[in-house]
């Protein structure tokens, strides 16, 4: 295992060392210590690495991740795993707003709560939040899945496209064109698999499913008041 201490090394040196593994992988296990809320930790990785970040991370931690499995032992700032393509990111604490924004693939697990706009413009990744999510989560989300084991804030799934949303607790309000949908057997199966993959022990049958009513997919003047 290779350890990088951010009290002695810069974020630039950390990221460069991780990027260098793309061309020639010499070490798959990485540990980052001395972390004090630094921004842009482990961004743009493109190799099957395991990166253990010991401490709270700032903005965009694990941004645009490909292939790597990143564990943050602490809280994370805005935009964790934004635009992730594959791999996984696990946060043991809370995540600030825009967690998993625009992520195309991979799995993001937040063991605490996530702030506003969790999964905004989601494009295919799976997000599992053991706690609650803030307002406008999954705004304009296009594909992928958001699972919320706690409650969801206002305007959940506003202007939603094809992202699936499962919420166990309460939903303060649904956004434009987001509706509750029947939880059929295939959804139970899908959620069971996802919860298992995320290592979250919850009963899939306790969740409700939300998705797009698809009424706003093409502009119609009759829907003008919905915009």
């Amino acid at each position, binding site marked *: 295992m290779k350890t990088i201490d951010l009290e002695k090394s810069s974020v630039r040196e950390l990221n460069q060392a991780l990027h260098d593994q793309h061309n020639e992988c010499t070490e798959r296990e990485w540990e980052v210590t001395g972390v004090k809320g630094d921004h842009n930790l482990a961004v*743009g990785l493109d190799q099957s690495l395991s990166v253990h970040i010991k401490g709270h991370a700032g903005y965009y931690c694990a*941004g645009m991740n490909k292939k790597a499995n990143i564990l943050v032992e602490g809280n994370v700032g805005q935009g964790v795993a934004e635009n992730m393509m594959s791999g996984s990111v696990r946060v043991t604490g809370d995540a600030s707003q825009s967690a998993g924004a625009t992520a195309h693939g991979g799995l993001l697990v937040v063991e605490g709560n996530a702030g506003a706009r969790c999964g905004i413009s989601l494009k295919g990744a799976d997000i599992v939040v053991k706690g609650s999510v803030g307002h406008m989560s999954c705004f304009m989300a296009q594909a992928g899945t958001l699972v919320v084991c706690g409650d969801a804030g206002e305007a959940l799934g506003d202007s939603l*496209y094809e992202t699936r949303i499962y919420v166990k607790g309460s939903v303060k309000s649904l956004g434009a064109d987001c509706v509750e949908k029947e939880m059929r057997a295939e959804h139970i199966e899908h959620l069971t698999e996802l919860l298992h993959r995320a290592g979250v022990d919850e009963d899939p049958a306790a969740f409700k499913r939300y998705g797009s009513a698809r009424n706003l997919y093409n*502009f119609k*003047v009759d829907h003008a008041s919905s915009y």
Partner: protein
Amino acid sequence: MSEEKDLNINTGLRESATFDHFTMAEIRRAAETGIYDIRGFGAKRKVPHFDDLLFLGASMSRYPLEGYREKCNTQVTLGTRFAKKPIVIETPVTIAGMSFGALSANAKEALGRGASEVGTSTTTGDGGMTPEERGQSSKLVYQYLPSRYGMNPDDLRKADAIEVVLGQGAKPGGGGMLLGQKITDRVAQMRTLPKGVDQRSACRHPDWTGPDDLAIKIQELREITDWQVPIYIKVGATRTYYDVKLAVKAGADVIVVDGMQGGTAATQEVFIEHVGIPTMAAIPQAVQALQEMGMHRKVQLIVSGGIRNGADVAKCMALGADAVAIGTAALIALGDNDPKWEAEYRKIGSAAGFYDDYQEGKDPAGISTQDPELSKRLDPVVAGHRLANYLRVLTMEAQTLARACGKNDLRNLEPEDLVALTVESAAMARVPLAGTSWIPGQKF
């Protein structure tokens, strides 16, 4: 229409200046459809523009350069502030961002071919980077937009520069819209949305909300690309002085300011015509902001919006820009609105020179369409060469004017070389009214 108008005037009929023919037609259209007009192109109203400025050629007090024998440099380096690999362009005329989706694959390829032929850059647009575009563009700027359609780190690392788009001149403060009729399988796949669905592009980025956040976002992009490539920030021209200062503070290598004449693929007419300020008015604001921060020429300034000829290029540079970008003019060079398609334009209720319904995807010229049959009409090799010819003419015209002002580099042109024909243009461009030393708001 003009003959009919003349006839009416001769018979004593008087058209209202307020409720003219176009205005009344628009009221009728709104009453019939119940929806606002969406169209492409840029602002069509007359606004103070570069035609209102003139160069003061050399004579007794200034020494001109020989037009054909003395060098006048046109090469510009963009991104010298932080990037390890700045972009060097051979002409200061670049191609603005236009998406695959809004434009056909052939049109995107033609833009790349034309730009590469003369050593300048082209820009992706919303919807991601296509292999055709990357393959044909020797210098490609990758736009980082609020929608993040097609955004991925592999393409980010293939780019020669990254342009973080906050807005565009046709619709500052507005998002985008690609209507369902242009969403083919390929466009849908690139944007991760079902075929045939209207694709709304958000007006705000999903993971940052202000300039302090943007500074961290730019650091992220630099970290992902190992600080190799320049990062631009593009804004629509509104409060340009403040926007440019904030963009510098956020860490931009290059700032792109797009005036209200800048084009669009699909935006509400009311937005295109009523939001933003003219390009000419934005440049002095941007230059002032850069100069006050000691960053003029260190952070390069690209301006766009209504650039048509070498005189416009030279005037932008005289006002302090480092380069310009063209969009609408480039499409026209490819063949947009060409009279040879007049009969086809008539069939869809338009006319050559007037066509602006890019959102409908029925472009007879095969440019703003995803229809395979229409797209075939544009030969990317021929069209690319036409664009290259046009870019060469813009460059030579700008050089001609610079030499006449005694300048051996386009960037040596300066506001002192310009005068204005109208009080409005003098005030906006901050150059004297012709024949006077009066700059409105500055000197009496």
